């Protein structure tokens, strides 16, 4: 029952995110367009490129969708509304996200196209750099909660949200989330300059699954930000199952809209900033959190 509800919620979330994304691009709110687009995609012919690595080509979109859904499965809607409350939930989110990278590499290689492959490999570098910035702020958050369980992490923010106590970790995590879900300005793997890169070779059903996976990924990451830094279901007046979706949507809208106003980064800058600036800052964040924890106690 919970699982069904969960899938439904994710689908709704993906739908709303699509609406928001279109709004961010075109400036108009059009609730029908996503459905129409999806139907159109399902109806079009699935073209397979010449000489693909068929297994990888077919498996990639599915893997992407699955890993996004799995990451979402350990994130709580309310204190009891969670599919599975793993003791290592925080780590599991990151583990699932890494498979996004595997999926994109598979897609890039399997399509047997130069642009797709460049896109796939460049995402490899990007995600390895940015998964550090995902896992290190999570470590800091878990330090405060003294647990890796996502429910315990939310409960630890009862007095004050983590965004207040660890602003540095929050900023890094948001940037890393944008990098991991290849939103602009981090959208190297499917950039228009690469003829849509990884996504370029997909059509029809496969493209639909690919896009759905991406949307679910955005929802998942927005939920993760909510859970780890914005107090999850905690909030005044309204019940918890309202607060989490509301916060998630706000975060998703910010993620989608915010990047539109920044020019796309070059890959070397992207990597340099992550390795040379982001990781020292993340370590500083961990040290800072450790010091505050010791000082408060």
């Amino acid at each position, binding site marked *: 029952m919970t699982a069904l509800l969960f899938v439904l919620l994710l689908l709704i979330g993906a739908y709303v995110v699509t609406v928001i994304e279109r709004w961010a691009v075109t400036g108009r709110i059009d609730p029908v367009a996503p459905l129409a687009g999806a139907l159109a995609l399902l109806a079009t012919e699935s073209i397979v490129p010449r000489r693909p*690595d068929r297994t990888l080509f077919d498996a990639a979109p599915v893997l992407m969708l699955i890993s996004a859904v799995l990451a979402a499965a350990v994130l709580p809607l309310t204190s009891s509304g969670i599919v599975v409350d793993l003791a290592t939930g925080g780590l599991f989110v990151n583990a699932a996200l890494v498979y996004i990278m595997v999926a994109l*590499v598979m897609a890039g290689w399997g399509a047997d196209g130069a642009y797709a492959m460049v896109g796939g490999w460049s995402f490899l570098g990007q995600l390895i750099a940015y998964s550090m910035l995902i896992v290190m702020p999570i470590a800091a958050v878990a330090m405060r909660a003294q647990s890796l369980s996502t429910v315990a992490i939310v409960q630890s923010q009862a007095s004050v949200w983590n965004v207040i106590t660890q602003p540095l970790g929050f900023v890094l995590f948001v940037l890393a989330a944008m990098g991991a879900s290849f939103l602009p300005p981090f959208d190297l793997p499917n950039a228009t300059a690469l003829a849509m890169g990884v996504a370029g070779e997909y059509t029809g059903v496969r493209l639909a699954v690919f896009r759905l996976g991406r949307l679910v990924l955005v929802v998942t990451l927005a939920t993760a930000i909510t859970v780890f830094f914005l107090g999850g279901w905690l909030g005044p007046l309204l019940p918890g199952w309202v607060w989490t979706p509301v916060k998630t949507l706000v975060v998703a809208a910010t993620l989608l809209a915010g990047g539109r106003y920044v020019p796309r980064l070059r890959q070397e800058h992207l990597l340099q900033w992550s390795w040379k600036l982001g990781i020292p800052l993340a370590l500083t964040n961990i040290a800072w959190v450790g010091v505050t924890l010791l000082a408060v106690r």
Partner: protein
Amino acid sequence: MGQPIAVGFFGVVAIWFAITVFRTSSMVRSALALLAVMVALGGIFLALEAEFLGVLQLMMMASEMTIMAIFMVMYMMDPGGLGQMEMTHQKRSAGLVGALGALGGVTLAVFVAWGGGATVPTPTGQLRLLGLEIMGRSMLIFETAGVTILVAMIAATAVAIARWR
């Protein structure tokens, strides 16, 4: 009852993909098959109630094997396996040694009277105990290993970026 079935299933998957690693001629497939082996091992870890290790295995091996794939593409003459070039040697002796090793392991596994059947702490308790182990009794070992590994990584980087004239 679920546990042996899960272990058996993931074990068969792991063995199957391990064979695939050395049978396929496409390098990227090799690397991804290796990733599948590691994922299956992670599944076994999870089935054996070592949750942290299982999740960690899933996380670490994904990036490692993907990196392996890109290095394959960089350094192989025939990464796609289209040219059907031969990339093995001394097959017979290697097979013999491999079979001997496997046979030895199987013998030990079957004929030694292992004890067993103990209960494990809960996942949360495991995390706690593992943390206490690392930060307490085994700290020196862990730190030593960490520093050694760091030194090796720096050395590897230094080797890789050394200018060749």
